[in-house]
């Protein structure tokens, strides 16, 4: 990654910059959502946008997720490139029908492209409780017609959000709120995008492959560092895009390490680890020397109390333990 010559910014700022720069670049880009204007968004991701781009392009909406998504879709039909914010990604299910039936199917059915981005803060670890901590990615990974992005670094967040805005398809862009102000990283001074649909190898290694994304990426890297101290070199893959999934990068790594551990913050049953397991079974069956393992959240809602949530979530220790077991094969 060419992250040189840039400045260190937070994950949050990366998202803000991506929106700012895309709106600057293209007047077809507009933003709509709850409290995105005067307030600058519940998480301040759109701070300064109303001031610069005005009321027509930064639209404070009523509390009506289906209307937000529906209207964004209509705008996209007229050639705009709307960004629809969900105040918390948890509320995306209030627009589930619009997204999965209207937005996702239009290009296939009647050749209508819907260039729109649906984004919002997701994920747990901040004691947001059962209704402010969602990781709803699999609902959408299982919906043909959508693209699904879940970045882990400021560089990727900015580059992928810009790519999403320029994409001709509806893109879901999840922003793990745990990373917003905790993660800083360098971004180039000049315009750049990160390609949708490409995973990246965050750390090279030969003993096993750890596949992850979003906040769990950092957890996985932490575990990999600990593993290295014990002589186990883990290759760590950051999926970045969940749909379409970058099978090539996954297969390449697993063919090298012959062992695979998937780490996701999403609940276990029906999580993306299963899809990866199926791909590996189909396409790299002979290459696996050990079982595919999963470290994921529990199959429960996200509990509120810190000890419960900690127990619920994966962490570096759990990843470390699973990886050590896997490395024994």
């Amino acid at each position, binding site marked *: 990654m060419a992250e040189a010559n840039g400045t260190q910014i937070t994950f*949050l700022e990366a998202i803000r910059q991506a929106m700012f720069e895309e709106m*600057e670049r293209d*007047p*077809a880009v507009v933003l709509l959502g709850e409290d995105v204007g*005067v307030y*600058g968004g*519940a998480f301040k991701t759109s*701070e300064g946008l*109303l*001031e*610069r*781009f*005005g*009321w*027509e*392009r930064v*639209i404070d*909406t*009523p509390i*009506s*997720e*289906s*209307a*937000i*998504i*529906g*209207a964004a*879709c*209509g*705008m*996209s*039909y*007229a*050639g*705009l*490139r*709307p960004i629809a914010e969900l105040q918390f990604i948890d509320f995306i299910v209030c627009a589930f029908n*619009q997204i999965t*039936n*209207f937005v996702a199917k*239009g*290009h*296939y*059915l*009647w*050749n*209508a*492209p819907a*260039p729109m981005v649906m984004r919002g803060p997701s994920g747990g670890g*901040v*004691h*947001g409780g059962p209704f*402010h901590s969602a990781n709803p990615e699999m609902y959408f990974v299982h919906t043909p*017609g959508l693209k699904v992005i879940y970045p882990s670094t400021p560089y990727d967040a900015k580059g992928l959000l810009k790519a999403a805005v320029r994409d*001709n*398809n509806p893109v879901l862009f999840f922003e793990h*709120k745990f990373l*917003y*102000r*905790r993660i800083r990283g360098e971004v180039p001074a000049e315009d750049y995008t990160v390609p949708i649909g490409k995973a990246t190898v965050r750390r090279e290694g030969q003993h096993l492959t750890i596949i992850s994304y979003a906040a769990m990426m950092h957890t996985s890297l932490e575990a990999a560092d600990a593993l290295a101290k014990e002589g186990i070199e883990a290759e760590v893959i950051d999926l970045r895009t969940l749909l379409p999934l970058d099978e090539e990068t996954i297969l390449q790594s697993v063919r090298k390490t012959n062992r695979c551990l998937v780490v996701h913050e999403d609940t276990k049953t029906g999580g993306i680890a299963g899809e990866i397991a199926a791909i590996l079974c189909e396409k790299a069956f002979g290459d696996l020397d050990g079982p595919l393992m999963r470290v994921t959240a529990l199959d429960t809602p996200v509990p509120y109390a810190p000890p419960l949530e900690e127990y619920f979530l994966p962490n570096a220790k759990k990843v470390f333990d699973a990886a050590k077991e896997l490395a024994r094969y």
Partner: protein
Amino acid sequence: MKKELTRQQYLDLYYYMRLNRAVEDTMVKLFRQNKIVGGLYSSLGQEAISVGTAYALEKKDWLAPMIRNIGALLVKGVPPRDVFMQHMAKYDSPTKGKDGTSHFGDLEKLHIVSPISMLGDLIPVMTGVAMAGRYLGQNIVTMTWIGDGGSSTGVFHEGLNFAATQKAPFVLILENNLWAYSTPVKRQVPLENLADRAKAYGISSYIVDGNDVVAVYSTAREAVERARAGEGPILIEAKSFRRLGHAQHDPAEYVPKEMRAYWEGRDPIALYEKFLMGERLLDTKGKKDVDEKIETLLAAEREFAENSPMPPPEFAETGVYCTGDECHKIRPKWERPISEVTPPKSSVKPVWTVEGFGSGKSAASTAIHFGDTKAALETETSDTDATTKTNGSKRAAKSPAKNSAKAGAASRATRKVKR
């Protein structure tokens, strides 16, 4: 019916209603020959609504039909063959067999948005088109339809409310045909006039006899022009009756016979023909001409449609995603200077102004919801007084009627709205 249109307009309305019915009659034949894939819906007796409302739109305007709005599509310029082919799932149909019925659209030329089956979803979508059209300076109006039953969906509410807050140039036709599938309107909506739905959004509404095409057209025309002039969205309730079952499979015996008979006596085409004859806008010869014109047209259209092939199986695999510029070049059609919506011209002071109270401040970059707990940690941790006190404010209330946003304006006694 009052005479107020041009002769051509009168005859257009007649032609399209006749065409609407003839197209649907042809489809019933096709259905009986088992050539229609899936269900077949009918707008028999409701043609005046589809035709009269769509006829009020200009070429640049946008519409999105529901299942009973074949007439609107015909008025907008869709050839009958497209309707036939959609229902037969043919490869030359607008969706090339991927979807059926009136589920097709045309973003580029005709400005039609395809519906989906989920009732109400089009309402925010057409609101979005309307907002985009205004933003791009196109001066367009958008229109869609919803049934009496469909007006109970959540998305109806969210869409119309959003349109109202945005004053979007959008006209919604509420087609009250007294039944939603097997359920009478009284069981679905506890209102005498469904136009009252508009009162929840502070928008204008009309009630019109949906079997009187001239009334429908005049009303729609006025609504469209008001919406175009910036008055915001408008709801029109067109009262009519669903003469056949929900779809071909449904004999609709749950409808009282007398009710059906009553409405058969109010056939919109028969009524209109009588009017046209009375006004000497149509005579037997003119009617025969229309008969023949439609017959010839539909014979050809039907033949074309029947001869169109089924899509090749592998076509199922294609087209889930737009592959980029070579697939779709997406360029909004600007009809205003871009400089109006780009900095520095677009720059504003990001504050709210509340009538009677001045403005707030623009929100500083403050602590955020969850995300980091630092803000909380940095504040004092001693058990000092909370910010609020039981009797914190001793100031007497200001004059109670300073502004309507204040509770003073609400009668202190209760207001009862009993209905």
